[in-house]
Every structure is written in structure tokens, then in C-alpha cells.
């Protein structure tokens, strides 16, 4: 199984590699995975006052598919609002990168990383969790 061109491209021409100051109030940081699993992704987003992601950075320890998945994720979330970005599905990453079945879990991890970063910045901003659609018994 040769590496797909897109995966190689993300390795050779990485987009958005880097770090933001995780202490800043408008920066969300998601770290997912574990060294024992061979996959660790750190994904960070910088958000403006309208909850729009204006910048994203990543660092990944993992195979080529993991690097490409997280790199692609940073490209896609840029310019989107937090709510839009939380709609990112790993299947979109699989399709775009032509990931084989054995590498699908890399895209799942990237999706997790995005969600973790979003959750982090929401927590910092004091956003409540999206209300569950349960109706109170007596209303």
C-alpha cells in the first residue's frame, strides 16, 4: 500500500504546524491520543469575539495519515464558527485523503482533537453546553 499523494503532500508541505499560547482566553487546545498508541495530536484554535476560528495550529506524533488528518483538520476549521467546526466528520477526512480502512482511526482522532479544542475554548468563555432537548415534565 503506497502512501496517497495527498498524505505525502501534508507531510512535505505541512500547513499550520506550530503552537499558540494555550493560556490565552481565546485559544482552545485539544490534546488527544497517547504515546503508547503511537498517536498524539495537539490541535489549537484561535477564536474571535464572534466565535469564529481565525487561526489554527497543530502538532502530531503519529504516522503519515495521522499527520495529514490533523493538518487537514486545521485547514478546514479556519474561517468557521465553533458550531460549524464541531460538525466536522471524520468521514470527510477519510474521503479527502483517501485513507485506507486500517487508517480510519487517524481521522477519528483528528475529529476528537477538533472537538477537544472547541470544548476547551467554550469552557474558557463560560459557554454552557448546548441545551439538551428534553422538555421539563411540567412545562
Amino acid at each position: 500500500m503506497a502512501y496517497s499523494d495527498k498524505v505525502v503532500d501534508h507531510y512535505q508541505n505541512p500547513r499550520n504546524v506550530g503552537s499558540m499560547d494555550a493560556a490565552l482566553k481565546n485559544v482552545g487546545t485539544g490534546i488527544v491520543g497517547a504515546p503508547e498508541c503511537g498517536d498524539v495530536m495537539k490541535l489549537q484554535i484561535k477564536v474571535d469575539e464572534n466565535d469564529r476560528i481565525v487561526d489554527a495550529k497543530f502538532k502530531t506524533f503519529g504516522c503519515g495519515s495521522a499527520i495529514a488528518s490533523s493538518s487537514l483538520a486545521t485547514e478546514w476549521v479556519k474561517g468557521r464558527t465553533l458550531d460549524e467546526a464541531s460538525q466536522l466528520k471524520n468521514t470527510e477526512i477519510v474521503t479527502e485523503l483517501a485513507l485506507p480502512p486500517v487508517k480510519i482511526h487517524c481521522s477519528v482522532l483528528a475529529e476528537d482533537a477538533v472537538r477537544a479544542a472547541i470544548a476547551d475554548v467554550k469552557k474558557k468563555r463560560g459557554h454552557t453546553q448546548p441545551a439538551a432537548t428534553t422538555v421539563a415534565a411540567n412545562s
Partner: protein
Amino acid sequence: MKSVYLDNNATTPVDPRVLDAMLPYFRENFGNAASRNHRYGWVAEEAVDNAREQVAKVINASSKEIIWTSGSTEGNNTAILGVARMYADKGKHLITCRIEHKAVIDPCKFLETQGYEVTWLEPDPTGRVSLEQVKQAMRDDTILVSLMFANNEVGTIHPIPEIGALCKQREIIFHTDATQAFGKVPIDVEAMGIDLLSLSAHKIYGPKGVGALYVRRKKPRVRLQPLIHGGGHERGMRSGTLNVPGIVGCGAAAEVAMNEMPTESVRIAGLRDRMWAGLSEHLTEISRNGNPQHCLPNTLNVSFLYVEGESLMMGFSDIAVSSGSACTSASLEPSYVLKGLGLGDDLAHSSIRFSLGRFTTEEEIDYTIKEVVKAVNHLRNMSPLYEMAQQGIDLSKVVWQHH
């Protein structure tokens, strides 16, 4: 630079001299070596006998003690299952090691389901088992000790002669999977007390699909139940029409390896050491896996902290190597050999095995050093683990969010 092949422990190219020796046996000398009644058979038989002699010489055996197989996997199965079944009345206990090749581990595991007991020795962190460990494990009902001569992943060589002597003393049959060692380091089945030995042609610049099993005939005479029945070829131990061209290739490859071993092993070890020196000079936080004092001349297994093996290989994709990383295995498990040495998963995932060979040049080594250093630095720049380590964070204390 054209592509560089540093994965010789996986397989080797067929040496042109070996291919030349084989070709006539595909063409005009196509006879079946078991055809006793015409020239076609006699020519084939003579070639096979000659090849037996060539292989036997490498290990100081008699040609009568060489059985042709389809390779080491078959040889290991024949030795282990064959001895276990033949000597079941004497005992049902075997001794082997956790970091053997699957072709030894799996038959042993199979025997465990058939009422046999196996003691799995744990190697030390460099991959060696000690004489003391083997001695402690021996019981009155032990019928076989199986320990590889040299490990395929890290190159570590066990104290074979000492273990062989112990087995002789205790009258326990000693099998060694010598797939990686045959033709690379000196082996003497007499001096080393070896009773069974597996080898494979495609690791010594011969063709795939053929190998040999040495089976001792004297002191003691080792008997085994065959895996394959059908005509009684190879003294009843392995039926089936012989792969004459493959066997000719195996013999030729063995002879070339024996003749070139004194100079080749020195040259290759020099290149391997040059590689390690070059990597150490330009990179920090790398470690060598295995045992530098007791190691195959061609094998170098290195862990590059904070970068993962598969991404590294992608980084120097025109250089062929292999990795202990989970990402490179179909099962998504990291190398059980490296785990067996006590390496943490993170180091296993970061490991690369470089296995040099007859056709490896100094130019290729220097090129590889350069490309590896470049790729490691590129990936460390992208690595959250490297970043955390640079910040002084103790990674072993971090609580990771598994998914």
C-alpha cells in the same frame, strides 16, 4: 541517488551468481531429482546432492543431515512439531523465548493447545537469554529447547555454544532458528552442540520459497515425525518433489556466503557502525536497541524519541527499512520483540530497523544518515511530544486522553 535498500533482514536480492547457477535447472536440466532411471533425473539428483554439500559445509554438518524445505517457517514447524510428536512419550515440555520469530512462537502455542507445556524465557533488555535461565527452566520431561541464533529485529545473538553444551549434558534436543545468522556469522553444529537448525535461502541472496533443516544423525540421532507425507522423500522427513532450481540456488548462495563471510561481515559491520556514529553525531535523544557486543554485523535498530516510525519512513521514502511501530503492522500492535525487551510503547513506535547487506555501499550509508537526520528534525518540529519535552515536561507523568 536511486532508491536504497536497507531491509535485508526482510529479504535479499538474488545474487547474479546464484541466478546463473539456477537457470540451467529451469531450462535444459529440468528433470525430477527422484527420477532414478534416466539422465534427466540423474543430473537433477547430482545438483541437489551438490547443494546439500554446499549447505552442510557452512555449518560443519554432513550432507546427509540436510533436509530441503520451503523455507525457515516450514523448517521451524518441522523441527518443533516433529520432535514434540516423536518424543511425546519421553516428555511434553519445551523451552523457548518470548522474542522468537512467529514461525517458532506459533507452533509452540499450537502445542500448548495439544497438551504440551512451554516455558517462555524472558530475554534481558538487550535481547539475550542467559545460560542460567535455560538451566532453571529444564525439567525431567523437557524434550526440546528452541532458541534463535540471532534475532531478526534487533540482531542480538544468544549464547548458543554454552546453551548447546548444556543441552548435550542434559540430553535435551537443541533447535536453533538460524535464519538470520546462517551465512552471516560462523556456525558449527558440532562445536556448538546444535541438533536442529533452520535456514532460508532468501535471506542469503538466494531465491524465496526454499530453505533447509539440519537434522543431527549422530550423538544423538534426532528423529522427527514429518509434517508432510507422500512418498517419503528426504529420508521420510519431508515428502514432495524437490524444488531443484531453488535448491541449486540455496546451495550456491550458501557457498558464496561462506566464502565471502570473513571479508563481508567486517565490511558490513563497519558500515553499520558508521551509520550509528553518523546518526549519533547529528541527533540527540536516539537510542540503540539490542546488544552491540553480541549482534549481527548488519543490523541496527534505533529508536528516535518523539517521532513515530511510519512517518519517519515516509520522510525518507526512497530508503527501504522497517519499523516496530504499530502503525506499520496490519494488527496495529507495536513490535512484540521490542516490547519483550522492555521497551515502552513510545520507544517501540519510534523504532527503525536498518539491515544492511552485500550490496550496501558507503555512499548509501552517508546518504541515509543525511536523509534520516533531516526527516527526524522535520518531524520533531511537528511533534507535540518533542515540544513538551523541550519545555521540561516529564512525559511519563502526563495523563493522556485515550480515545
